[in-house]
């Protein structure tokens, strides 16, 4: 029975259970400088998406909607299979379809990539977030949005190297894949991974997922995909959602998956140097003003100035009267 990798080994519990992801398991918390180190280190987890096994059926989308009780809109057909057309606050994951002609053999390949939060080890969203505790990272690698703390500013959207979070137009909070933190907390895998018919999506410890990926890559190489490989981009410290790609040498062909994602330099500048230099500059300016005020001599109007003014006015009046 266990020859097939699959996410679920048991059905979800219905008896009350303690959650296994608590505030004490946080390793990062947005806009929070002093976070006490966690008492324990959870084993890092990961979702592995084997693009070569994916049949683009959108079961992941369906399961995601059902589990998270979201309500994606019924849009129009615009001549593509990608529906909804983009990630939304009601659609945390999306199959993106690309028709790609392999220049090496002129064969068509239909590349189908499940897009969604990558759960970066170095999360740009969390870095960008100004609201304390709105974005957290657990020691198992899950990056989660705590909606009560979210102010809806959209900074996470700018911070994300993969353009994932979306802000709800209704409650003005940011939404994205939680890696089903509520399920993981009771020992279940994410809804998408559980549903995935071909188990192109699997979930487990990051280490297991990496070794499973190795098997898949070996299989793909045996089928002629010489550049098959794992997408676990170091630019963001690695991710807790990884891809097996048949063409790992060119991730961009998979609906613009970034070749070498990093937190944008602009965002780094904004949340780094600008923040500190800016604060410093403003502080210096304010302090300078105060110091100058205290130690400098105020520019006071002198009695002779008043007299001169009066004279001027009188002279002018005089001219007026003379006229």
């Amino acid at each position, binding site marked *: 029975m266990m020859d097939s990798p699959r996410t*679920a080994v*048991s059905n979800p519990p219905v008896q009350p259970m303690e959650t*296994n992801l*608590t*505030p004490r398991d946080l390793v990062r918390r947005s806009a929070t400088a002093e976070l006490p180190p966690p008492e324990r280190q959870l084993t890092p987890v990961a979702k592995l998406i084997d693009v070569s096994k994916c049949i683009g059926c959108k*079961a992941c989308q369906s399961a995601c909607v*059902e589990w998270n009780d979201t309500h994606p809109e019924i849009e129009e057909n615009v001549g593509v299979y990608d529906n909804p057309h983009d990630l939304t606050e009601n659609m945390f994951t999306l199959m993106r379809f690309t028709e790609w002609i392999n220049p090496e053999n002129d064969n068509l390949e239909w590349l189908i990539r499940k897009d969604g939060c990558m759960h970066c080890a170095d999360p740009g969203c969390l870095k960008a977030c100004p609201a304390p505790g709105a974005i957290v990272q657990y020691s198992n690698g899950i990056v989660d949005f705590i909606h009560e703390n979210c102010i809806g500013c959209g900074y996470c959207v700018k911070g994300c190297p993969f353009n994932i979070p979306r802000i709800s137009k209704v409650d003005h909070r940011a939404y994205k894949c939680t890696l089903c933190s509520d399920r993981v907390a009771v020992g279940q895998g994410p809804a998408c991974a559980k549903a995935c018919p071909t188990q192109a999506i699997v*979930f487990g410890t990051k280490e*297991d997922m990496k070794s499973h990926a190795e098997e898949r890559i070996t299989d793909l190489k045996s089928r002629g995909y010489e550049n098959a490989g794992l997408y676990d981009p170091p630019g963001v410290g690695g991710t807790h959602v990884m891809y097996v790609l048949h063409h790992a040498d060119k991730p961009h062909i998979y609906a613009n998956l970034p070749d070498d994602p990093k937190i944008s330099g602009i965002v780094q500048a904004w949340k780094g140097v600008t923040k500190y230099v800016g604060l410093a500059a403003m502080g210096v300016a304010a302090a300078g003003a105060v110091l100058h005020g205290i130690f400098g001599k105020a520019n006071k109007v002198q009695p002779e100035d008043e007299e001169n003014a009066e004279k001027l006015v009188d002279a002018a009046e005089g001219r007026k009267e003379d006229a």
Partner: protein
Amino acid sequence: MNVDLSRRSFLKLAGAGVAATSLGAMGFGEAEAAEAAHVRPFKLTTTTETRNTCPYCSVACGIIIYSKGDLRKGETADIVHIEGDVDHPTNRGTLCPKGAALKDFVKSPTRLQYPMHRKPGADKFERISWDEALDGIARRMKDDRDANFVAANAKGIAVNRWSTVGMLAASATTNETAWATFKFAKSLGMVGFDNQARV
């Protein structure tokens, strides 16, 4: 009957899978001090589980229906979630995009709730009672059968054919319903009786 199943034996069976090792390693199972909810509360807690089969294609994936309320205790059961049954040998908990959204089929706004009747030429349905519907249908069937039944052919051989009323049987009803339907249709001599397998 349907819930006391082989979950435990199955788990034992499940030795070497990727996930089997993974989930244990995640620290699941360690007792935790109660703390303010951080992740979303697990929504299936205290629901009732019922084993069922996906009604779409004939892969016939095992599913579990989660409801508030238990039919077996005579309660009203409101379905809150449907998910693949991990114990099922074919689908092993997985579901396709249709199966994964079964709850929304059950809860579809276009689910029918009452018998309706459209009069000849009318531009709308009107609600009627079950008795009105069933009496009306039986009456019409009887009248037509009595008028158009072919008892015998030219040679005088009994042929027992009623071809002026036909029936299409469903493709997603249970075998038991199908058997009851079969008895009903064939005993009436209804020859124009077919099912979705034809198309």
